[in-house]
């Protein structure tokens, strides 16, 4: 232990002892009294010295008290602190995990993990020395700095009070990148990360400072919903619910299923620690509805936010496709598929729709082509890639393709031949396509054959060769490819499977372009979002579990929900080591030792000595 001072220059105040002592003896003009003899008094004094070893001090007790008062005040001015031996950081960023798992209680009616972390931070703030600066950074799905580096305890305390649990997973890397950016401005040597351990175990960062990971005690038993999705069944939705028990303990609970406000059924579950269980029930699909799954724990459940989940079910309808009439092979491959409506119907005089399709398969490029969430363009080069690739008339074979791509799953392209050979321009590499947001799904010898672009919620597949000039329609893989394309479109249209929405960011949706919408969150907060020219309404923050309402003016446009936490959050699992790019950080449950300032203690002691001196000076004679 060391006992240093923040302001050792204040030691010069010790010179005040000189005038203090001089003034004491100058003012000490004792009243004189003549007595017959000093004989008795001398014996009394001798006796007192023998009986009271501190008589020498008591004789000048007032002076001693004054010296103690001044000494304490000088020490307080020197701002001593009780050193813990640990290196003292001048700039200390404190990262506070406020993800969903930090809302877990330790016991019935106990405190949340975030409250425990805030208590630790409050101790650090209370013990801040005058030359120490702290910045508070919250860690949830992103990192956000609450305060600049400051030693203003009131400011830090107020900021600390504002921190609340977000129903989102923690992403430490964002907060660390933020801290890394701060390190360019401030000489940060160490950062403190307060968490319950429910964080990613790896962070792909190289940090210029040390990270001390301090664990708050873990939460108690928990059971919660980690997945909720529905798959298209025969005129019904099959709804799947996944429940998981926490790492520490699970529990028994009753699970209730509602469609809108109608109770569909309930089930009893009993989960051991780390155990999961999947429940299935059916919901009608004749109209759009909302599924609510509610978990009613029978015993203590540390996390309440994962006990309810919502799912928006659309009405079941056929997938609406636009297929160019000239693409007969596609039309033929689509015929046996159920739930698919292929337009335009040959011979029909209905006008061609511009929008409203779920899938467009075309061989044309331009504004006249209908728009859809999923499209496949055959025999064309994307306009923005016209400088990168050109089509040569030559026979070519597929060299390689991505077998795990949703489009090419179970599709064999090995013996397919094409008479159109896409050739990349000189010095053009795959990276150049990727820079244009295109992914190459199939390669020819000198260029890409199939490209995929996923941008703004729309998926576009480009066959750079025309199927009519290849052997693909005659291969068994072609109907599989078409089926895969339909499945992708169904997924995109929400007709094949509907997944419960996790918290964080609401999925983008299409709305009126250049329009401002108001999103009302479950806790009543309102955020304004303006769509672009493409009408995409995205980037809506959803940090709370519950129902969100999207309004245009005062009218409600639509309602949606975000309810699912990540399974890691529900399981309350914790890591004891975070692996960084070069080093690993071990967690510790012991509280980080911080230097304790002692000036208040010395100031209080000085005041007490002053009061004692006053009492001693004023006390009635003969009181002892």
């Amino acid at each position, binding site marked *: 232990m060391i006992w240093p001072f923040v302001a050792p220059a204040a030691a010069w105040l010790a010179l005040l002892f000189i005038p203090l002592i001089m003034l004491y003896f100058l003012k000490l003009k004792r009243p004189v009294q003549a007595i017959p*003899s000093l004989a*008795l*008094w001398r014996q009394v004094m001798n006796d*007192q010295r023998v009986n009271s070893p501190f008589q020498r001090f008591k004789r000048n007790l007032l002076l001693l008290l004054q010296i103690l008062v001044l000494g304490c005040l000088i020490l307080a001015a020197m701002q001593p602190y009780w050193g813990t031996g640990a290196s003292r950081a001048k700039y200390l960023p404190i990262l506070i995990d406020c993800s969903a798992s930090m809302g877990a209680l330790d016991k019935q009616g106990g405190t949340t993990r975030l409250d425990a972390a805030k208590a630790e931070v409050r101790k650090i703030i209370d013990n801040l020395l005058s030359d120490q600066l702290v910045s508070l950074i919250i860690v949830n799905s992103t990192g956000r700095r609450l305060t600049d580096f400051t030693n203003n305890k009131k400011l830090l305390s107020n900021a600390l009070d504002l921190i609340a649990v977000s129903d989102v997973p923690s992403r430490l890397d964002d907060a660390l990148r933020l801290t890394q950016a701060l390190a360019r401005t401030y000489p940060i040597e160490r950062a403190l990360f307060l968490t319950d351990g429910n964080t990613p175990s790896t962070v792909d960062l190289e940090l210029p400072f040390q990270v001390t990971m301090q664990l708050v005690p873990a939460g108690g038993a928990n059971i919660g919903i980690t997945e909720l999705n529905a798959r298209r069944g025969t005129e019904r939705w099959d709804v799947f619910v996944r429940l998981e028990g926490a790492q520490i303990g699970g529990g028994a609970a009753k699970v209730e299923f509602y469609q809108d406000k109608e109770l569909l059924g309930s089930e009893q579950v009993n989960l051991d620690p780390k155990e999961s269980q999947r429940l299935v029930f059916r919901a009608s699909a004749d109209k759009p509805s909302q599924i609510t799954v509610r978990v009613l724990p029978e015993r203590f459940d540390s996390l309440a936010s994962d006990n309810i989940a919502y799912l928006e079910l659309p009405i079941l309808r056929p997938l609406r496709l636009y297929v160019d009439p000239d693409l007969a092979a596609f039309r033929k491959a689509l015929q046996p598929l159920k739930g698919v409506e292929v337009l335009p119907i040959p011979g029909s005089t209905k006008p061609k729709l511009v929008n409203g399709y779920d899938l467009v398969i075309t061989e044309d490029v331009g504004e006249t082509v209908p728009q859809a969430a999923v499209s496949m363009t055959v025999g064309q080069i994307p306009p923005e890639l016209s400088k990168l690739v050109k089509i040569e008339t030559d026979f070519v074979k597929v060299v390689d393709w991505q077998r795990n791509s949703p489009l090419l799953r179970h599709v064999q392209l090995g013996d397919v031949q094409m008479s159109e050979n896409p050739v990349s321009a000189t010095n053009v590499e795959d990276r150049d396509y990727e820079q244009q947001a295109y992914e190459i799904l199939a390669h020819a010898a000198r260029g890409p054959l199939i490209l995929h672009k996923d941008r703004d919620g729309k998926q576009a597949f480009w066959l750079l060769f025309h199927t009519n000039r290849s052997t693909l329609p005659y291969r068994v893989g072609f109907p599989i490819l078409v089926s895969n394309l339909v499945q992708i479109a169904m997924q995109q249209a929400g007709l094949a499977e509907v997944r419960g929405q996790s918290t964080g960011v609401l999925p983008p949706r299409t709305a009126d372009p250049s329009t401002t919408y108001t999103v009302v969150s479950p806790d009543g907060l309102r955020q304004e979002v303006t769509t672009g020219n493409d009408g995409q309404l995205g980037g809506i923050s959803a940090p709370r579990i519950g129902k969100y309402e999207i309004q245009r003016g005062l009218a409600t446009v639509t309602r949606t929900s975000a309810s699912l936490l990540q399974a890691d959050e529900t399981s309350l699992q914790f890591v004891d080591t975070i692996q960084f790019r070069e080093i690993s950080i071990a967690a510790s449950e012991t509280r980080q030792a911080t230097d304790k300032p002692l000036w208040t203690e010395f100031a209080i002691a000085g005041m007490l000595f002053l009061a004692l001196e006053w009492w001693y000076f004023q006390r009635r004679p003969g009181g002892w």
Partner: protein
Amino acid sequence: MSSSNTTRFTTLFDNSVLSRLERLRLNPLRRLTVRSRGEHQTGKGGTSTEFSDYRDYVPGDDVKNVDWNIFSRLNRPYIKLYRHEEEMNVVLLIDASTSMQFEGKLDLAKQLAGACGLMGLMNSERVSIYACHHLGKSPELLPPCSGRVSLRRIFKFLEGIQGGGDTPLEAAVDAVLRTHRGRGVVVLLSDFLTLGDVNPALNSLFSAGLEIHAVQILSESELHPEITGDIRLIDSETGDTLDISGAAELFGIYQDQLAWQEIQLTADCQKRSGRFLRVSTNTPLDSILFDTFRRKGWIR
């Protein structure tokens, strides 16, 4: 001076006190007398007219001392013994140093000395008075005198004693014993506030055949001092100073010390067949003489 004072025999006492004192005698514990005749009755047989005892006749005894009445009844000769009345020295040693000038201590000492002197003279003792003032100087002396005729002389001497000086008690005793001869009683009238050891002085008095009657005269301020806070005390005799802080805390120790001194002086005097008595200047003289002294057996 009022007219009533002119009728007083001495300024030390009222006449009523004098008349009461004339009927009292000093009562020493031992018979320390001189061979010269006096009215002080000794334990051994003498030639006075006061019968003391009988003893068997032995050859050689003066037959005139045979009690013939007894012989006629018992047919055996018995010698009749009489009390021997001898003179006793009464030495009055007055500590007249500066410390005795406080709060009437010296006046009380002179009154007590006058009373003892009166009783001595009335009992035909040889009374001498020593008043000690300054260290190194001979004490003021009233040579031994006896008889009622010396009464006025004694009172005049006492009335003339002025206080002042720095003689400690032990030095005063040494000075007295340099001039005094004869056994008897010494009455020490002092405050016994000395830094030195009084035991050698008491030993000297005892060796000189003087029975010690020590009277410690203390003022009220010495018995119950009222000193508070930080104060500087000055010794009236030596001028030495002593700084005291928190005097209130010292009262308990002071009282303990005072009690211990009384016990110690009493023991010192009793070891030498003497007596010790502490009196306060606040106590009336009548009470000291006719109550305390009589109850303690100092006078009879």
